[in-house]
């Protein structure tokens, strides 16, 4: 285990992997600062460029980018009062209030230091989880892997939207994703399914154009329509003044920062909740740490603890979220589902392999999170006074460049115009889903997991016939899935009978 840990570090430090990581960091750095462009969109856009990379290089690039987005997103939240990322909105409450009081430097110092602590806690959790879940994962056969995918979809469906109808919407989205995944040859006999005699559909739909369509197109349409330039006012003064004070704050409230990091990690592990929830829970926890009424009323008006909590949690969740993704192949969020797509493009299968043969690759992910956050935070402190200028790039300048990237991404997968059409089709689907409040995450999870789910079901039945349903772990997972599905339905019934009693 220790050997693999060191090997993972050496893998990341190879010059090529390291260079790709720096490239990823630079991208993530900038994307995090820009309010119009999100980390998930960029992850989908960058997926096609990892084809020629080795697994370690590919993950150094993607994770390097993904794991620093929340760090620099906090900066925009503090300086402008606009979230740089969806996951950094909670930092605004006290961070921007501090900036308005002339303490922008202190708020930035606190946000950066707590981000680093959070990222390290998350990475440590991932590293510690590997030996813990390994025996569990290795004891899993196809029946268990099938059930755990179902549980993952159940969780993401019921948590990504509110209430019973929200959950059912999630399920329908997940089911449609699974359906789309069955297009092409079936995994056993190679019989063509739903190809409608089109050679293009024979090999199934390529993940990249579909992911770009679903996740990038709606955001681009939004950018075109809305513009996306920052209208807020920059607080005056030199930003590096007081930054050290912010770092000291992190250590003054060290246990709070650690506790909020743990909250973020835990939320990351739970499928379906995602970073948007983690930051608010951490903020709530920070508010609870106030001992007196006056202290509590200071929150929202510039209490540094309101920066430390979400700052730590939105970074620590990444390490946590990688645990189920790597170990069980069940991603908990949209970004992890896209990352799972990256696994397949790089020729890796998440699950037992990642904890045995490819253990060093898994540990290289831990190191990538650590290194990229250290590099980012150090770079931020060095260039603190110039950071604000990076956000000046206007949305209108971005749109054309992103459009070219969208095109290259969908075209280069197979050099086929069909991919462009596919991307546009799913772009429309994605846009309509966003407009109608239909969650996209379950759809993508179903799409990415489809082939694996079917394969595991096939092996289960071929090997155990229907006796696989009586295996103990399968029964436990089945009970869990049923509980997750029934809970919102029972709640809806209760709230209805309550409102009838009132009426």
């Amino acid at each position, binding site marked *: 285990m220790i050997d693999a840990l060191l090997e993972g570090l050496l893998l990341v430090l190879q010059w090529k992997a390291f260079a790709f990581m720096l490239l990823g960091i630079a991208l993530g750095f900038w994307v995090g600062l820009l309010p119009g462009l999100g980390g998930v969109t960029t992850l989908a856009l960058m997926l096609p460029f990892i084809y020629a990379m080795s697994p370690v290089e590919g993950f150094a690039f993607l994770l390097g980018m993904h794991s620093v987005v929340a760090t620099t997103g906090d900066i925009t939240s503090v300086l402008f009062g606009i979230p740089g990322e969806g996951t950094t909105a909670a930092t605004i409450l006290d961070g921007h209030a501090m900036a308005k009081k002339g303490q922008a430097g202190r708020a930035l110092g606190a946000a950066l230091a707590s981000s680093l602590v959070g990222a390290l806690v998350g990475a440590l959790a991932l590293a510690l989880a590997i030996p813990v879940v390994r025996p569990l994962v290795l004891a899993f056969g196809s029946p268990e892997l099938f059930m755990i995918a179902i549980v993952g979809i159940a969780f993401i469906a019921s948590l990504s939207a509110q209430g019973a109808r929200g959950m*059912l919407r999630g399920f329908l989205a997940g089911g449609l994703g699974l359906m789309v995944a069955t297009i092409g040859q079936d995994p056993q006999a190679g019989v063509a399914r739903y190809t409608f005699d089109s050679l293009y559909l024979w090999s199934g739909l390529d993940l990249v154009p579909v992911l770009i369509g679903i996740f990038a197109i709606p955001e681009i349409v939004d950018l075109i329509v809305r513009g996306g330039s920052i209208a807020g006012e920059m607080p005056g003064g030199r930003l590096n003044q007081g930054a050290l004070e912010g770092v000291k704050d992190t250590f003054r409230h060290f246990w709070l920062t650690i506790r909020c990091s743990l909250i973020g990690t835990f939320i990351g592990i739970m499928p379906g909740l995602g970073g948007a929830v983690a930051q608010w829970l951490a903020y709530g926890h920070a508010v609870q740490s106030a001992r007196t009424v006056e202290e509590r009323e200071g929150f929202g008006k510039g209490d540094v603890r309101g920066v430390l909590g979400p700052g730590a949690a939105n970074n620590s969740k990444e390490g946590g979220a990688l645990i189920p993704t790597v170990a069980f192949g069940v991603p908990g969020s949209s970004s992890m589902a896209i990352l799972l797509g990256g696994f397949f493009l790089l020729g890796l299968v998440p699950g037992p392999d990642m904890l045995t043969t490819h253990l060093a690759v898994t540990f290289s992910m831990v190191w990538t999170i650590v290194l990229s956050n250290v590099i980012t935070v150090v770079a931020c402190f060095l260039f603190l006074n110039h950071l604000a200028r990076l956000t000046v790039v206007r949305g209108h300048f971005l749109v054309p460049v992103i459009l070219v990237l969208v095109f290259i991404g969908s075209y280069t997968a197979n050099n086929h115009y069909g991919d462009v059409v596919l991307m546009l089709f799913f772009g429309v689907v994605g846009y309509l889903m966003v407009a109608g409040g239909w969650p996209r995450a379950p759809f993508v999870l179903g799409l990415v997991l489809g082939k694996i789910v079917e394969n595991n079901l096939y092996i289960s039945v071929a090997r155990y016939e229907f006796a696989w349903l009586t295996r103990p772990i399968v029964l436990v997972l089945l009970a869990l899935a049923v509980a997750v599905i029934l809970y919102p339905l029972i709640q809806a019934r209760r709230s209805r009978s309550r409102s009838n009693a009132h009426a």
Partner: protein
Amino acid sequence: MGVCYHPSPEEKRTMMTDRVIFVCTIVVAAVYLYATTLIPTLEIGDPLGPKAFPRLLGFCLLLAAAMLFVEMWKDRQTAAAAPAPSGPRDVRHLWILAGVVVWSGLFYAVLERLGYVVASAIYLLALMAWFNRGKWRANVVTAVLFSVSSYALFAKLEVNLPKGILPF
């Protein structure tokens, strides 16, 4: 506590969305199950066959859609009124979007003939002339630099882009 319940516009909107989702799912599931019957069956020792999983999926989807219908039915009093119109969209925005789509279509059409560098430089220049009006020098520099440098980067990453009329 009023006897009559007035749904908020937000509730009406989700009700409408649920109806659309319900109808879409039913149609897709029906087409899918029909297409499943078209899959040829092989007489080999495959315990499940290529149709089993899709069938299971199709029926689960119909079941979930039925449950959605039941939930909508139970909540029906909240949506007694006509569906709220989705907010009026700015017509100008639609024109801009349409323009971008058409221009992108043209770009795709000539890409293989002109090559990536030339086509994307022209494509970018026109878009920036519109979105980033009046800043000619910055636009030209960005368009040319981006297309050339991205081409070089992608060549390094072994991403093959059409060469077109340029010799390299």
